């Protein structure tokens, strides 16, 4: 049995999630928002693996889920950065406040 209580992992993951949430909600740069989202995904992964280790250790579902989340995060980063790049080329900015074409 591990000497670290499950709670510790959950609390740390929750804090990480909230920091990421703050970053995603408040950053001006689109890349900053993306980075916040990556933090949130990481926090979720910690939870998944922690629950796998402490509750459902016989299966592999927790690790599986984490791997799928990592895959999706990679795909998301690629597409989001492509979007940022395209935006910068057409609108000359990556600041979300200035990307207001649909805001009339």
């Amino acid at each position, binding site marked *: *049995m*591990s*000497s*670290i209580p499950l*709670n510790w*992992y959950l*609390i*740390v993951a*929750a*804090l*990480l*999630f*909230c*920091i*990421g*949430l*703050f*970053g995603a*909600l*408040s*950053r*001006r740069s689109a*890349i900053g928002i993306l*980075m916040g989202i*990556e*933090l949130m995904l*990481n926090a979720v*992964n910690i939870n998944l*693996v922690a629950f*796998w*280790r402490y*509750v*459902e*250790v*016989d299966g*592999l579902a927790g*690790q*599986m889920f*984490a*791997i*799928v989340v*990592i*895959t*999706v*995060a*990679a*795909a998301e*980063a*690629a*597409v989001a*950065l*492509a979007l*940022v*790049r395209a935006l*910068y080329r057409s609108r*000359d900015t*990556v*600041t*979300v*406040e200035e990307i207001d074409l649909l805001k009339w």
Partner: protein
Amino acid sequence: MTLEQGIFILASLLMLGSALAMVTARSMFVAALWMIGTFAGVAVLFILLNAGFLGIVQILIYIGAIAVLILFAIMLTPDVMGLKPGPRYTGQWPLAAVMASTLAAVIVLLLVRAGNDWHIADAAPNVTDFAVQLGEAFMTTYLLPFEVASGVLLVALIGALVIVRDE
């Protein structure tokens, strides 16, 4: 305090500290570097959780690929050098701060009150060779998620290419 706990506390501090530094950094490049620190902390946590394979994958994909990609994207934006950074946050940042800290307070409070009241399986994982186990599971039980994930990757690859292509 055991050695494991010590490592856990150090890794968590590294992780949360760099996460905070990341969301408050003025320059985007520095923020991305702090993000790498966070990822490294998460990798340590994975290894502590007996998921060494995931820890390595975390380093490989998050630090080796996603972080480099983000650094690269930052270099393609204006003010690459971060010499004249504008304001960091949008106007709604106080609201965001209140929301995030409230959420954190609520979750942490709930977790503390729940205590150790989980259905904890009192056993260490009985497999050692996770790479083999995961590989087999991906080809049998979890074939559908595997295929869907590869589909997502393919679509993302093509989508990203289409979006950034010059007309």
